[in-house]
């Protein structure tokens, strides 16, 4: 479903991604783990065509992102780290606008908007102005716009950042309810989130993938929880790089 081959990304002289390669199958739920600035968002932005890779190949649903960007964007739902919301728009109007831009056929737009309002439990606020909503509701509206076109691939960048514990559980349950038949990529630095949602983990450090393993294997091999594994791998990688 998603293939990255030797992808690098430079911002000026700074190398944000170093020869990244991985494959994600249809229906997989993959968690990107890493500290701030590790390169998680950059990979997501390349996947969504927001940024071009400096070199390497990105294939999504059989199409090359650099050549068929528009066709591929139709198959993707994306929630950036900051939910991209128009604060002066009503929730329903915003979702309708998102459906229009995401090529949802005119006759289905109303149905699709109703569907995502229900899925994200935001029917009660559909006529409210986005700017007046709480952070948790805003996050759900952000997720609703990401799934309004029923995408094959769902990319969520830090979907629970800044939420209180109750809101985190609500958003997490929402993401879990969306996983069926959909490829989900989710980035976070909250380890328990990965443990509860993802099937596979990619740990990214300084633009490199240091671990690409199923969650089950990772926990079995290390015989500990994800937090310990993350700290262990992180310090090992740090020692290795300082030794080099």
């Amino acid at each position: 479903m998603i293939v990255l081959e030797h992808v690098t990304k430079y911002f000026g002289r700074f190398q944000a991604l170093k020869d990244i390669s991985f494959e994600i199958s249809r229906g997989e739920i993959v968690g990107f783990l890493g500290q701030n600035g590790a390169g998680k968002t950059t990979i997501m932005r390349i996947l969504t065509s927001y940024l071009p890779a400096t070199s390497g190949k990105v294939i999504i649903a059989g199409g090359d992102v650099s050549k068929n960007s528009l066709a591929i964007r139709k198959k993707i739902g994306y929630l950036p780290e900051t939910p991209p919301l128009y604060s002066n728009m009503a929730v329903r109007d915003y979702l309708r606008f998102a459906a229009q831009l995401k090529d949802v056929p005119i006759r289905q737009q109303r149905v699709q908007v109703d569907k995502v309002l229900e899925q994200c439990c935001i029917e009660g606020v559909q006529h409210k102005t986005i700017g007046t909503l709480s952070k948790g509701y805003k996050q759900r509206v952000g997720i609703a716009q990401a799934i309004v076109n029923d995408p094959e691939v769902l990319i969520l960048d830090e979907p629970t950042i800044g939420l209180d514990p109750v809101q985190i559980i609500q958003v997490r349950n929402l993401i879990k309810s969306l996983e069926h038949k959909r490829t989900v990529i989710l980035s976070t630095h909250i380890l328990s989130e990965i443990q509860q949602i993802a099937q596979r983990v990619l740990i990214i450090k300084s633009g490199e993938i240091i671990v690409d393993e199923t969650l089950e294997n990772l926990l079995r091999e290390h015989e500990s929880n994800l937090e310990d594994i993350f700290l262990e791998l992180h310090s090992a990688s740090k020692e290795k790089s300082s030794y080099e």
Partner: protein
Amino acid sequence: MNKIFAIAGKELKAYFKSPIAYVVLIITISVFNIFFFLIIDGNREASLRDVFKVMEFLFIFIVPLLTMKTFAEEKSSGTMEFLMTTPTTNTAIVLGKYLGSLIFFTLIIAITLSYYFIIEFFSNPERLETLIGYVGIWLEGAFFIAIGVLASSWTKNQIIAAISSYVILFLLYFSMSFIKYFSGSLETLVRYIGAWSHAENFTVGLISMTDLVYYVSGILICILFTRLSIENRLWH
């Protein structure tokens, strides 16, 4: 095409949900009304020629206020990432935003059509001259809006976008003041670039191909540069 209208509609609704639009609309129409009264009362002739000249000058102050948020706000709020990751071409995004601002501006011009009916009620104005005058000021406004949208695409700060527009519009409008410092082909170029001389022909009821080409090509060039600007920001 549907996406262009969807973006334009969103822009237009955003205008009416922000106080800036109402402030601009009320102040603009009030100032236009004052000048309309003063000019008609002073000239004692059934012509909007001098009213058009004042309106053109006031566009320099109004247009940057209308266009400063078009792209700058999208960038600062993070919604640019949303727009550019939907299956929407950059051309459609730029045209939609431009169209939204243009429709709002057209509304302001449409309100001033009442001036024609007022003078027609009292006298017998030259219909064709007035119509051409309106076409001229609309074209000039459309060109200024294209410049404002372009300036907004350069930054995420609305104030910087407005100031950039003011600088460009002032230079365009007052370029004839600097004509004595140029000679030869450079003088011809500065004379051609100046917006005021092109608009003046329309206000006296003259349509020339040179003026039409000036405005239409100016609009197209600005739209093209805006598209390049939002692309260039990403694909580096």
